[in-house]
């Protein structure tokens, strides 16, 4: 459906949003996809008409913000439609795309959990190493091997190694742990704080 906008930027914002919608729904059968898009266009257009922003582009952006990210609210619809169609059609292509779509939703959540788990584990290791440096100064730190390569961690026999940072690793490690902790926690808060 062709809509008329007063400003070119408004048209671009609108088109970009519906490119994202189209991309999210690309595996849904064409007729169903067109229907969904038409419904969403109607919704967004009415929301924009009821917006009080003096500027057309701001009105569209406000409506888009209220609508939400299509990648979030439409992916379950796309995944469900694919599997539903696949189970009716017995089409292997539909089954494959339906399963992949549902898998992606789960994988996204799993990767998210993995990323933060590894991040927190890493900062815990740094913090522990920093503390243990006090008790085992010759065995913990960043060491340069005779070959020229570097190693970080716990070394049983460090006689042939050069401790690169010495005791400076303690304040550096503590600062790094604290900074990493705040960055990870802030990122986690931002990512989990999305509206449904």
């Amino acid at each position, binding site marked *: *459906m062709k*809509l008329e906008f007063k400003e070119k930027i408004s048209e671009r914002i609108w088109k970009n949003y519906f490119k994202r919608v189209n991309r999210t729904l690309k595996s849904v059968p064409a007729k169903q996809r067109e*229907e*969904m898009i*038409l*419904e*969403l*266009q*109607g*919704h967004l*257009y*009415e*929301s924009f008409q009821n917006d009080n922003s003096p500027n057309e582009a701001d009105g569209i952006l406000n409506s888009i913000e*209220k*609508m*939400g*990210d*299509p990648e*979030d*609210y*439409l992916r*379950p*619809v796309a995944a*469900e*439609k694919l599997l*539903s169609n696949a189970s009716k059609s017995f089409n292997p292509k539909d089954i494959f795309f339906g399963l992949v779509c549902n898998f992606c939703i789960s994988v996204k959540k799993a990767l998210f959990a993995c990323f933060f788990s590894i991040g927190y584990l890493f900062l815990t290791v740094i913090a522990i190493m920093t503390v243990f440096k006090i008790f085992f100064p010759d065995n913990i730190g960043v060491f340069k091997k005779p070959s020229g390569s570097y190693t970080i961690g716990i070394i049983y026999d460090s006689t042939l190694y050069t401790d690169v940072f010495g005791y400076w690793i303690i304040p550096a490690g503590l600062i790094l742990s604290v900074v990493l902790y705040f960055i990870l926690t802030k990122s986690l808060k931002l990512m989990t704080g999305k*509206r*449904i």
Partner: protein
Amino acid sequence: MNQKEFLNKWESQLRKGLLEFIILMYLEEKQYYGYELISEIKQFLSITISEGTIYPLLNRLKKEGLITSTWVEKEVGIPRKYYQITKEGIDALASMKDSWIHVNFSLQKLMVKK
């Protein structure tokens, strides 16, 4: 998270969990199209919710046979997809209302006991 934030979040999640029930209650009254329905619900519940999320819910209710939809052409602008409750939807809603009354009654008993 402080207590006020916790309570706000809990109440918000509670209201969101009841959305399908609330949608059916609205549709029992009359037919609605998506934008109209979510606007009324947001006003009634006073919650922050992405408007797009109503569509997966409507899709699910339609898949279960509890609602149907019809496209209505407008003289000007984009056509609207109106949703209506089905007979199965009315029956399901009646059962949901009974369940809600039962849960509410049990909670009242628990609150009085404590």
